[in-house]
């Protein structure tokens, strides 16, 4: 291994001389401790290295070892249910070896080398395979069949294929390529900064259901789409991200906790083995990979954590899975970029962020998508990406928010006014948007209900109207509004409180299926429209609002999934209004 010499140490930045031959983004090991770093700039024989661990105690004259290899992740069986730091070191193994605190210079393989997996071949000897084709599979967890694929860049005839109990370092297949015979193991390494190739990109056309009413109904995300959740602190970003990680109907979840709280990871680790996937009934941890680089862990590894997570997510997408990646929070990642850039004395752009901030963010989100994967079966995979953004002071003009909004298609704007009234999820319905509504229209029509999209439109219009009416009411008082307008205010209140408001900690309320969402919204709007009709029949607003069925509407969210109970409420509305209309008009008598 080639050796350089340290000439400067400034926090996470180390400069070394005698590094001719080092390549950009090569991994290096620093000092006697062997801290891990990455080359981020080269000036003649000087290498500028960002170090992924604390550099206290490192000084000039100490050696730097050039590995000649880029910073990579290991991809293979054993990823699922793991918890890694930003450069894919297994935190659970570290804990067993080093104790409760993370020490420096630890080098551990990300994947367990000893564990035997039951490898079931999917090809036979003599078969021609192309890159991306399945060679076999391993049941990693009851939820995940881990496909072993022909590595990118290889193709040829299978000369040997094994089966049975094997560890990941054993050769499972040998492929006769034109020039040589290639040994294939169950795991491969991949440079984290390179995209994994696909055959073709497709337009996202299916919703990623999350069980969160305000998201699925009003601002849906598509499978293979991108979304962001910006909001000030305390507005519930992390709860939204956790809810998405818990209830999304993706097959694989990669959760990147990037520069956030340690206790939030503890929460995930505690709840994921307990919580059951609503679609399969298995523990959520069996489909989840967690990357945890908390705010007190080294800042440079925070920068890498996003890419580590993305490479793992792409790998599972290549198997034809629908994968969802959550990054909480991309602002902390951007700050890591800023910190390193500052130490390198680069010319700062907006707010001290480097000038390449926007392009890095765009590159990141562009790795999402619905695709036809490599491989001759032309299977489809999808990778959806959701990033939390934590703008300073909740100010949406922050460069990270602005750069993110340029590329993502769904914007869930968190509002601390809503959060202050404990309206959760505090997604502001006037500011948020989703550009996928058109894409998923067909799916909704065929799989949920024909009128779903039009009901959504109606609810949106009512909410829009509400804000105007509230403005008027604030200026001249509620009395100046017509009864119809006042009914609208009551109905939108019902939409807000009985539909959009969702308690993440209530066992029944935390997840709502699309079908139930549809039935709930239909019921609420049915009351509104029946109310309007009753008003036309000269019934008074007070009479309408006094109907007992309204309490039933407000309790709909606590009803179990399934049609019958909800339909009952709908029918009760019909009956209540029928009764009301048959009653002799009180108002007429008074006249």
């Amino acid at each position: 291994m080639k050796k350089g010499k340290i000439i400067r140490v400034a926090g996470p930045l180390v400069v070394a001389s005698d590094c001719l031959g080092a390549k950009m983004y090569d991994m290096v090991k620093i000092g006697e401790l062997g801290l891990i770093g990455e080359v981020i700039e080269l000036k003649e024989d000087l290498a500028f290295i960002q170090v992924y661990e604390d550099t206290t105690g490192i000084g000039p004259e100490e050696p730097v070892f050039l590995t000649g290899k880029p910073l990579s992740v290991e991809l293979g069986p054993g990823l699922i249910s793991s918890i890694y730091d930003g450069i894919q070191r297994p935190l659970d193994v570290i804990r067993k070896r080093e104790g409760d605190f993370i020490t420096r210079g630890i080098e551990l393989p990300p994947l367990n080398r000893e564990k035997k997996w039951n490898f079931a071949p999917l090809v036979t000897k003599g078969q021609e395979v192309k890159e991306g084709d399945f060679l076999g599979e391993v049941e990693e967890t009851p939820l995940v069949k881990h496909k072993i694929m022909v590595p990118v860049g290889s193709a040829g005839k299978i000369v040997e294929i094994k089966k049975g109990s094997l560890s990941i370092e054993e050769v499972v297949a040998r492929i006769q390529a034109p020039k040589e015979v290639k040994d294939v193991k169950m795991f491969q390494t991949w440079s984290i900064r390179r995209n994994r190739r696909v055959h073709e990109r497709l337009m996202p056309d299916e919703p990623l259901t999350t069980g969160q009413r305000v998201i699925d109904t009003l601002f849906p995300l598509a499978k293979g789409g991108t979304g962001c959740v910006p909001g000030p602190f305390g507005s519930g970003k992390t709860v939204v991200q956790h809810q998405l990680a818990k209830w999304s109907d993706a097959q694989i979840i990669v959760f990147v906790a990037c520069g956030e709280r340690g206790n939030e990871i503890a929460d995930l680790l505690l709840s994921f083995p307990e919580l059951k996937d609503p679609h399969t009934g298995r523990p959520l941890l069996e489909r989840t990979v967690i990357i945890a680089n908390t705010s007190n862990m080294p800042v440079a590894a925070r920068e890498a954590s996003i890419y580590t997570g993305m490479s793992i997510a792409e790998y599972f997408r290549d198997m034809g899975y629908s994968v969802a990646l959550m990054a909480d929070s991309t602002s902390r990642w951007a700050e890591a970029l800023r910190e390193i850039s500052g130490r390198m004395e680069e010319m700062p752009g907006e707010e001290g962020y480097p000038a390449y901030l926007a392009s890095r963010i765009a590159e990141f989100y562009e790795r999402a998508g619905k695709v036809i994967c490599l491989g001759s079966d032309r299977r489809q995979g999808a990778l959806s990406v959701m990033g939390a953004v934590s703008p300073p002071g909740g100010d949406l003009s922050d460069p990270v928010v602005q750069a993110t909004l340029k590329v993502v298609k769904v914007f869930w704007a968190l509002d601390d006014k809503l959060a202050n009234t404990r309206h959760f999820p505090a997604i502001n319905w006037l500011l948020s948007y989703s550009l996928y509504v058109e894409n998923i229209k067909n799916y909704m029509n065929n799989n949920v209900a024909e009128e779903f999209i039009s009901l959504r439109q109606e609810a949106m219009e009512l909410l829009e109207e509400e804000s105007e009416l509230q403005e008027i009411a604030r200026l001249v008082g509620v009395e100046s509004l017509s009864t119809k307008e006042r009914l609208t205010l009551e109905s939108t209140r019902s939409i807000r409180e009985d539909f959009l408001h969702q308690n993440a900690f209530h066992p029944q309320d935390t997840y709502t299926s699309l079908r139930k969402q549809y039935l709930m919204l239909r019921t609420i709007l049915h009351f509104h429209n029946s109310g309007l009709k009753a008003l036309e029949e000269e019934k008074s607003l007070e009479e309408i609002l006094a109907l007992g069925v309204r309490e039933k509407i407000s309790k709909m969210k606590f009803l179990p999934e399934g049609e019958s109970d909800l339909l009952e409420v709908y029918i009760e509305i019909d009956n209540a209004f029928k009764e009301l209309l048959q009653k002799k008009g009180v108002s007429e008598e008074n006249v």
Partner: protein
Amino acid sequence: MYKEYLTVSNIVGPLVIVEKIRDVKFGELVEIEAVGGSLRRGTVLDISTERAVVQVFEGTIGLDVAKSRVRFLGHSQQLGVSEEIIGRIFDGSGRPKDHGPQIIAKKMIDINGNPINPDARDYPSEFIQTGISSIDGMNPLVRGQKLPLFSGSGLPHARIAAQIARQATVLGKAEKFAVVFGAMGITFEEANFFIEDFRNTGALERAVLFLNLANEPTIERIATPRLALTCAEYLAFDLDMHVLVILVDMTFYAEALREIAAARKEVPGRRGYPGYLYTDLATMYERAGRIKDKKGSITLIPILTMPEDDKTHPIADLTGYITEGQIMISREIHRKGIYPPIDVLPSLSRLKDKGIGEGKTREDHADVLNQLFACYARGKEARELALILGEAALSDLDKLYLEFAEHYEDEFVRQGEFESRSINDTLELGWKLLHTIPRAELKRIRPEYLEKYYPEKK
């Protein structure tokens, strides 16, 4: 013997630049002997083959270029700890300030600490009863949480913090408990308030104090909170104690950090604070918590005074992003003469959900909490409306809410400085207030609890 250097070339603000050095490491502790023999300490901030940039804790007044002697001590700043540390008072650099003897160290610990492995963390879930209704009822504190007080100048945050330190208990348990107090840049009077309060209540015997007062060196403040937290880690994870750490005032800490960044001519971030303020604060706040299979815990209450009461100011803002909620102290409520002037609407405790409920506080706690919030928020809205349009323009329901808000502030929030309310009393008080609102309005409360605590009048 350490090598001595006489090669100081520049002195800029708190920084000293030493030339022609050898075998110096990043983060190393440095001793500087000024003319006349007075000693100061510092740490290496930037090191290259030719020179080291040293940040001097005690300030650079009286240092000169020609005669200052610099020694590199070969290790980073450490704190010597043993059981004897409990009940002692230290200065901001960890030297005894109470005329007592030096601590005979059983263990030397690097004050920067190591990050807790996220996999080793245990989720905080034990409710701490502070006896203050607006905290226990609305924003409950749990063991291992970091919950700052966001305050402003002239507000009684010190009294609230002292009250919490005095009254905090975990229901039904008597365990080893200690308070670690770190003061950065506060005045003698404020520091003395805490010391006297601890002394009067007997808490001083189980407290450790690190004091850097306003007239003491600014740069020393960088080390003070780390000393306090290192001490807390020792007490919690080596001696199995439950430690409450109070750090006051984080604003002065951040200003000291800014001073160094400016002296180093770093690219400034928002309002001149360095871009790494978030990371820097996080390396301290994140030291709070619980560890699996360990008995002790660290609960952290940092106090910060927001310049102009602006919670979007970088210090408050970044703190809020790291900590698990915040208790907001409101000038408006303070002006009404209500103590403690805690505004529950912008306050938040993120860990409350795991710490409350059946078996911990009471089954209805979460619902009552949410309902009180909603009602108070509505009441405040009504109050604003009444200001513009006059009270006559309010609907009957809004008038009820308006009244609710008044009672809420006057009965629920207001309490005595030495009054400790049990969680049961707090919740009963909450229900009493909720009874003034029609039952159908209480949508945040599950029907079964409504039935139990607010039975329908027949």
